[in-house]
Every structure is written in structure tokens, then in C-alpha cells.
């Protein structure tokens, strides 16, 4: 079975490399059972959580100067809590098992580690749906630079690359975003900006993910504290491809084109300003919600 996948992006910060390396290997084996719609459903919660994480932590205030130097460099961390509805799916038996049977409460990639077995009492044949990793959270971390402001506009960049994992190829994250101040045109008691962000994430030939976020952002600051929030519309894609070798030794190219389920999100956050040190946390309410915490150095914000 030649397939290396998925949970590797979580490893990008390296903190969980040891434990998650074995998880990636487990997922490789678990997913080997799935070559069609079951596979898409099995992985869909991962696409939802990963994309939701990627679109989180992109801003922590909405204050943009009309013209002047502003910079923020930090590490943004995100956590997507996995609800019970994301841990099970409805699936159908595949392969040589007859009669074809549709079964509820089959584990997804985040579901129980125990597989679901279905036995046909007449023939005595048993089909097993693989279990999952029994995860309650999916984390992500991304380095981020935001720089401005020119005519009330700033630019956000996210970038990460590594070739450390020989057997999966390069892992690349690249994201950019642009924000423009609205409150420079309107006499408002709060800061208001509109922003667009686009990010891509690739793992060798195995995973190609992209996400887009359009958001309306607002913030209000008092000494040491910034209250911020926003509403956004997000979309994305995640293509996963691998080579599958079946029990008979036949190789097939398997491909899953997933669409993350999130569309509208609402953000509510609080920032702590300790001179140039900025610490902030927010909650993003959506179909797949996330928490985000970031810390960095900000000047002129």
C-alpha cells in the first residue's frame, strides 16, 4: 500500500511530530479499505476541520492607518473541535461482500478506533469498516506576517515549507490576503475593514488544498485590550490522491475531491497588547467551528 497522507499538515510545527507520524501511518492503513464514496465521507470531516483552521487567526484587529508603517509577525495556532456528528457516517459495503449493505454509525477518520463489523447471518461473511483515530481536536499552526498600510490597505502573508518528510515530498503552505479600511471613509466609532484571503497547502502529490475567505472585520481598542470580530464567507477545496494496492496486488489510482462544508463564519475575539507583544484569541462559529490563539510582535498596529 503506497499512500502517504493527511495528518502530516498538522505536523508542520514539529511539536507533535513523533505521535502524529504514527497516526499518518495508521490513516494510510485505515483508508486503504476505501476506494470510493466511503472514502470521501471518511475524510470529509478532516477537510472541514483543516480548511476551517486555515481560515482562522487571519486578523486580530481592524485598525489600519491611512498611511504609515504597521507590521505584525507572529505564530497563529488553531484548534478545530470535532463534534460527535463528525465522528460517524453512513457507509455501504464494498468489494466482494454480498449482499451490499448500508450501515449507520460507521467511524470517520475522527471516529472510534474500533471498526464496525457487519455479518450476513446466511452466508457467515463479515465486512469490516475501519475505525478512525478517535480525535477530539485538530490543531494547526501557521507563521504569519501582516504589513501595511498604504491608503488604508495592508497585506497578510503566510508561508511554510519543508522537505523533511522524504516519503511524502515537499509540504508547502502559501497564503496571502489583502485588507482595506472602510472606516477611513465613514465616521464610525469602531474600526471596520474588508478583507480577502487565499491560501494553498500542498503535500507532495498526495494533497492539494486551497481556501478562500472574504470577511468584514471590526475592532475596538482600549489600553491593553482590543475587542474584535467579524463575519466571513469561506470556500475551499481539498484533493487527495494516492496509489492503492488491493489484496490481489492490483494497483489503482484513487482520488478524492473534497469540498469543505463551511460557508459563513462569525468571529469574536480579544487581543492583549503588551507593548510590541501581541497576544490574541478568538472563537469562530461555523459549521466547523474553531478556536484560534496567536502571539507575535506588532509595531504601529
Amino acid at each position: 500500500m503506497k499512500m502517504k497522507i493527511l495528518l502530516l499538515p498538522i505536523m508542520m510545527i514539529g511539536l507533535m511530530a513523533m505521535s502524529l507520524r504514527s497516526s499518518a501511518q495508521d490513516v494510510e492503513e485505515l483508508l486503504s479499505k476505501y476506494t470510493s464514496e466511503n472514502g470521501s465521507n471518511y475524510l470529509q470531516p478532516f477537510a472541514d476541520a483543516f480548511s476551517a483552521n486555515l481560515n482562522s487567526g487571519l486578523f486580530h484587529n481592524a485598525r489600519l492607518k491611512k498611511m504609515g508603517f504597521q507590521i505584525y509577525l507572529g505564530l497563529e495556532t488553531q484548534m478545530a473541535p470535532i463534534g460527535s456528528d463528525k465522528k460517524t457516517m453512513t457507509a455501504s459495503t464494498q468489494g466482494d461482500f454480498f449482499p451490499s449493505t448500508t450501515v449507520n454509525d460507521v467511524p470517520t477518520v475522527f471516529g472510534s478506533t474500533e471498526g464496525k463489523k457487519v455479518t450476513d447471518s446466511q452466508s457467515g461473511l463479515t465486512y469490516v469498516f475501519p475505525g478512525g483515530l478517535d480525535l477530539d481536536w485538530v490543531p494547526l499552526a501557521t507563521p504569519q506576517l501582516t504589513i501595511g498600510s498604504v491608503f488604508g490597505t495592508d497585506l497578510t502573508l503566510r508561508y511554510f515549507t519543508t522537505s523533511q518528510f522524504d516519503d511524502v515530498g515537499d509540504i508547502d503552505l502559501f497564503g496571502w490576503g489583502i485588507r482595506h479600511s472602510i472606516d477611513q471613509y465613514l465616521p464610525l466609532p469602531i474600526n471596520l475593514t474588508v478583507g480577502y484571503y487565499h491560501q494553498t497547502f500542498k503535500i507532495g502529490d498526495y494533497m492539494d488544498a486551497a481556501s478562500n475567505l472574504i470577511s468584514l472585520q471590526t475592532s475596538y481598542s482600549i489600553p491593553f485590550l482590543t475587542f474584535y470580530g467579524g463575519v466571513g464567507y469561506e470556500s475551499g477545496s481539498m484533493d487527495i490522491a494516492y496509489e492503492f494496492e488491493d489484496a490481489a496486488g492490483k494497483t489503482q489510482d484513487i482520488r478524492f475531491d473534497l469540498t469543505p462544508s463551511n460557508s459563513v463564519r462569525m468571529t469574536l475575539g480579544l487581543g492583549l497588547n503588551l507593548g510590541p507583544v501581541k497576544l490574541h484569541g478568538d472563537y469562530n462559529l461555523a459549521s466547523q467551528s474553531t478556536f484560534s490563539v496567536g502571539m507575535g510582535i506588532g509595531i504601529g498596529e
Partner: protein
Amino acid sequence: MKKILIPLVVAWMMMPSCDLKDVKLYPSMSESTTEYIHHQGSYSETGIYNVTEIKNSINDLDAEGRVTDVMIEGLYLNILLNTQIDYPVTTATSTSADLILTDWDGIDFNLADDVTIELNKTSQTVNLHEYLDSEGVNQLRDMLFDVATNAVPAGATEVRVALNGVMTPVNGFVNAQVDIVIDLSIEFTPE
């Protein structure tokens, strides 16, 4: 301040990795035995699955841990006609056969009953699901579990499956290579 905040953030990010559980794995594999049938009227041929070869196949699976279950997911026949050039070509139009499993103690179990095979194609696959006898399938599963868990009785080296059948018409001849294939999933539980 930074000295406190950084470990806090790191600890928070580490939390999910602490939650990682031991994962049961269910890799799939196939075992097959080949029987050559070149008979007129009726036949009885026995296919042999070598215990050591089955065990080696299980050991080759990409999974670690203790084998805690063996599941038979499918049983089917791959049939090739007229492969043995030293024998006459097939003249029978169909055959009806039983598959008989012999357990470690020499007791026979019906694995499949009255499997009807139309002999009108040079190559075909016959899924046995509608002919299977659950008692025989369960017995086969138990024997394969014994193999996977090193519980095979001393001296037993083979799993034997006989194919007993008759031709239609009764004086028809069959020249066929028959593979009896078992699709399996093996449950590995981390130790």
C-alpha cells in the same frame, strides 16, 4: 511575560497529541488455492492452503499488534476453461459442485452447496455468497484465526477444501483450472 506565555501556548497545542489513541487496523488479504479438473461425469479435487504460507502473508501485512479477529469477507471461484492442452476441451455445458472444508480433526463441513457454474465462458469469476453455508464459513474463519494466532494443532500444516461436482450433461467433459479465493480482513489490536 514571554517566558510564561510561550510554554502555555506550546502546552495548549500539545493537548490533542496526548489524546491519540491506539488504533485497531484491518488490513485485507487474499488466499487462494488452485485445482485442476479434467474429468468426465463427476469429479472430486482437493485444494490446499498451506498454513505456513497463510501465516507468512499475515506477517507481511503492513500492521503491528496482536491479531484479535479474522473476518472472511468474500469467497469466489476464478475459472479458466481448456487451460490443460493434454486433455480434451470442455464439452459439459454446466456443472454443479459442493465445497467441503475439512477441519483440524478431519471433520467435514459444507462450505458451499450446489454451486451452479455455466461453462460457456473461457474465463469467469463466480462469487459464492449465495451458496455459502454459514456453519462452514465460521469453521473456516476459526481455522484461519488459529493460523493467525499460532494456535494450529501440532502436526496440522494444511487447510483443505474439496470441490466435488457433477457435469451436465452427465457424460460431459470438463477441462478447467479453478482457483478458490478467500478475501480476508485481519484485525490487529495494539499491544
